[in-house]
């Protein structure tokens, strides 16, 4: 009987799937459209900064020692004789084809520079977020489990320090203590000078390249150098992650199912790590994604302090030389990565959390 008339109790299965697929396609389209619009917004802002704010953008590019002929040529090459919207369309076209202009300070195309410097930043930020998660999540859970005790207060202060300590200052103090005094870690730079240039770049990340090529001396030297900057960077994500973990955990611990579990006599450790922690893993992913994006930004300051040859260092050098193409190129790259991580962690949240689906 029941197998004969399934249609009466529930809609036909193929119709259900098509409805769900349609909704999923709709979500993907909305996602792509917002991503596109945000990216266009970023381009509009960099365009505005590069072309509209400077009183004379040509002068900003050629410098004040250029002759009139050079000046005119540059103005024509930049398309400044055309209306603003045409200039913007050209600019978007250039960016999409990977043409970010030439850097005045290095004399190379900005896009080439950026792809050369990006791996160093990526390597440090990734290690930083790993440190932040490995320490921040347990700290947050402990603080929530011991809410109101001195331990909770101490973790709260550590978390707030993450919002109040200047990254560049912490880097300098770290260098003074752990490098100059204690000799526990390596100094500025990615490697000691005599190891420089020995590994052929494959991914550009020295930790991976040296391992792949079996250069363990170089690997350990690289570890020795990256530990301090990555830890300083990790501290800032740790502060944020611990704070958010604590607040998510407190939400869960006040739920009735937690009380039920406790009343049933489930050990506190299991209550905390299984009943309360499992549901917060999904929102935590968003938090981790956001702080990962934040680390890319934080690395600007850290790289300056540690002479780390990444995008942040490239950006600050460009800033001081008023090298606008390089400044806008770096802003664009960091901004795009930031946007993508932001949006992807938002989507991950929706995909992984059954309630938000």
């Amino acid at each position, binding site marked *: 009987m029941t197998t004969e008339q399934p249609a009466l109790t529930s809609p036909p299965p193929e119709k259900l799937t098509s409805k769900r697929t349609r909704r999923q396609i709709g979500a993907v389209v909305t996602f792509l459209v917002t991503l596109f619009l945000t990216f266009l917004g970023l381009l509009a802002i960099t365009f505005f900064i590069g072309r509209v704010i400077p009183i004379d953008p040509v002068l900003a590019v050629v410098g004040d020692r250029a002759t009139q002929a050079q000046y005119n040529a540059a103005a024509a090459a930049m398309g400044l004789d055309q209306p603003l919207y045409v200039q913007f369309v050209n600019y978007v076209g250039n960016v999409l084809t990977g043409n970010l202009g030439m850097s005045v300070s290095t004399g190379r195309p900005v896009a080439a520079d950026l792809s050369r410097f990006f791996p160093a930043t990526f390597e440090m930020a990734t290690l930083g977020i790993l440190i932040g998660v490995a320490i921040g999540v347990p700290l947050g859970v402990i603080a929530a489990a011991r809410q109101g005790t001195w331990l909770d207060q101490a973790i709260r202060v550590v978390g707030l320090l993450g919002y*109040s300590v200047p990254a560049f200052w912490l880097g300098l103090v770290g260098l003074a203590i752990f490098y100059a005094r204690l000799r526990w870690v390596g100094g500025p730079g990615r490697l000691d000078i005599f190891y420089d240039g020995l590994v052929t770049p494959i991914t550009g990340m020295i930790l991976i390249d040296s391992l792949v090529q079996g250069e363990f001396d170089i690997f350990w030297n690289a570890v020795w150098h990256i530990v301090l900057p990555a830890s300083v960077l990790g501290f800032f994500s740790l502060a944020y992650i611990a704070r*958010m973990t604590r607040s998510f955990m407190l939400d869960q611990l006040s739920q009735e199912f937690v009380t039920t579990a406790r009343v049933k006599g489930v050990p506190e450790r299991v209550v905390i790590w299984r009943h309360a922690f499992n549901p917060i893993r999904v929102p935590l992913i968003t938090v981790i994604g956001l702080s990962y994006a934040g680390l890319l*930004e934080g690395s600007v300051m850290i790289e300056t302090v540690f002479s780390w040859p990444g995008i942040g260092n490239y950006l600050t050098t460009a800033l*001081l030389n008023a090298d606008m193409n390089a400044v806008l190129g770096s802003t664009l790259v960091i*901004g795009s990565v930031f946007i993508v991580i932001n949006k992807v962690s938002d989507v991950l949240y929706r995909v992984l959390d059954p309630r938000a689906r």
Partner: protein
Amino acid sequence: MSTRDWLLADSPTSRWQANAGRTYRVFTALLRNPLSVLGGVIILVLLLTALFAPWIAPFSPTGQNLSQRLLPPSGVNWMGTDELGRDIFSRVVWGSQITLTIVLLVALISAPLGLLIGAIAGYFGGWVDRVLMGFTDIFLSLPKLILALAFVAALGPGINNAIIAIAITSWPAYARIARAETLTIRNAEYISAVQLAGGGPIRVIVQHILPLCTSSMIVRVTLDMAGVILTAAGLGFIGLGAQPPLPEWGAMISRGRTFILDQWWVATMPGFAIIIVSLGFCFLGDGLRDVLDPKSEGKS
């Protein structure tokens, strides 16, 4: 009737009494939290230091004395001296004026701007809302520090441009809050009453919606101040913010970078000032949030 009874009266007889009573309740609630008291004290000390800098600082912040170069902290020079023989403590004291100026100006520019944009978007809804919030969201999804750096690069280094750049990057968060608040009160009956009495949009927004956004705005602005101080110091550190010989804390750290290994105090001391003041704003902001806006805990 004692002052306290007057303040805590259940049925205040004037608007002034109601406001005073509310302020008093917030104040006493704040006093119960030791960390927010500490934060308040720190901010108070910052204000007093900035006001009375000429009398507090024992030496001139810019007067050079090359025979007294790079002296370690002592009874005379509490925080030591820098590479030009200037007393670091005096410079830190004078620097509080710069920090306070930056913080106040950024708050005065970005908070009203955000409030207005958010309230307009929330009140009118429809395409006005979509355009304004789309714009806000784009700004929100971009990295603040990087944007501020790019703006300063285009505007040119200097403290005024640093303030403008930071303000440009901090209004979107306020717009979001103001919009959310406006949406919850837009359809309230007292708003309809004002509209029926002939109140136009400007009057409704300015007189009846914005005042209700203030408490969550105060919380958010206080919490954000630490970030503003750090960004300003970062700009100074890179060399794009306050220019020498101004005793800006970030720029002072930058000068001390060269001596960090041997004369650690040159770079370290101004850093402590930054940390203490930022922590002060964090503590106070945290306490204010617990009192004024407890629901927003966790939404940083």
